[in-house]
């Protein structure tokens, strides 16, 4: 079980959290201006990063708040957790899956 550091509550066991998938996905401001491929990219395409992955978590059985985390998907070790709206702490540390960087 993962030990996850909620930015509001501190270290808590994984069972208090729900997972929210890839972070920093921004809903297009004007969806009707997109073509089908661009809309599918937003809806379905994910980096599925093998390495440091920016992702959303929610402290559902705690404070209830969403936050973001950096976690290495090859070790499950968390590098950082940070509040929604904050910039990704150290983008240089990330090695996205080759060819899938956006």
């Amino acid at each position, binding site marked *: *079980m*993962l030990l996850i550091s909620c930015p509001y509550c501190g270290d808590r066991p994984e*069972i208090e959290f729900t997972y929210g998938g890839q972070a920093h996905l921004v809903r297009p401001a004007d969806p009707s201006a997109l073509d089908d491929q661009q809309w*599918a990219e937003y809806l*379905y395409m994910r980096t599925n990063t*093998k390495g440091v992955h920016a992702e959303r978590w929610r402290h559902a059985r705690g404070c209830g708040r969403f936050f973001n985390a950096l976690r290495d998907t090859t070790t499950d070790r968390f590098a950082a957790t940070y509040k929604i709206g904050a910039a990704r702490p150290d983008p240089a540390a990330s090695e996205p*899956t*080759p*060819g899938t960087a956006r």
Partner: protein
Amino acid sequence: MSKQTFSGLALIRRALTGHRDWRPQWRKAAPKPAYDAVIVGGGGHGLGAAYYLAREHGITNVAVLEKGWIGGGNTGRNTTIIRSNYLFDESAALYDHSVKLWENLSQELNYNVMFSPRGVMMLAHTVHDIQVFKRHVHANRCNGVDNEWLEPEEAKAFCPPLNIEGNMRYPVLGAALQRRGGTARHDAVAWGYARAADALGVDIIENCEVLGIRRDAAGRVEALETTRGVIRAGRVGVSAAGNTSAVLGLAGVRLPLESYPLQALVSEPVKPIFPCVVMSNTIHAYISQSDKGELVIGAGTDAYTSYTQRGALHINTHTLDAICELFPTFRRMRMMRNWGGIVDVTPDRSPIIAKTPVPGLYVNCGWGTGGFKATPGAAHVFAWTIARDEPHPINAPFTIERFRDGHLIDEAAAAAVAH
């Protein structure tokens, strides 16, 4: 090296001579500089595709590249359940194609894959379950796939250890039974395909990880850079399960996949007690008994994407809670081993078996939590797709473009969690 045929007579003859002249069942091949086709991923799907390329399409200058050892990924980590009672027409056609191949696979490969159509029973615990499962029964029958509804007493008659008393949080209200479903020996599937493919000239190359995909000026796949050197290939089929995003990323192809750990566990071996496969989507349990006597139990996926091939204990505990409620007699069983595999999940929980935007590059992925059952069928239509550069009618709907065009095959909604 010619293949040694297995038979009762061969077994008796070698028993008389001390079993000293059995040969290795396939060669340990070193990579040649070039192949007509290369399959990336030496699981059942990849080895099967190589076999069908050689046998059905006459393409024998083929290599299977495996970064570890064959059958060491999800082929060796699943709970070996085989069934085809999927809701949608496209899925029923694909999975039933596979079940039909399973039925004759041991004879075809001259290798006992121990296919055992002992029946797969899916339990209903709520009014919603009853309605959904009955819908599945009717839809399956329209597609020529056997599936029948059982009342709780009939379910217990089919699987005596099952608790159908009203003392459970989610009592058993009925079940859907596919009698043609069952299990097979997972390792034997990989080994059987490897042996048969090898006999047809396919090179099986282990400890060979793909590090790069080279493309020519026209964008077509030209060669693979691997840990064992550069291998030229006219066509490349990727069948790499949880690592598919990483492999296809080497060619700049993005896929709607996320890779999650999926766990399973086995108990200590006991005498035969469990005659079939039982699944419960609602309280999340999958259980059967192997021929060694272990109870083989499937747990759920972990919540987060990962490549670690392990998961959290509470996922297993959750499943064991359900198992103990359904089968109180197993409460004192001890669990012997647990493990995880990395499964590549699509948004609609249906696979992708298709051409990619890169000419000469094909992909068979997105099997999520239920790829083992599809091994022969997926391998068969994937080989067709690679050989003819166009999909077989059965896998034609399972494209990458369906996510762009909105033609999802939404078994996610149809099956909730289970595959």
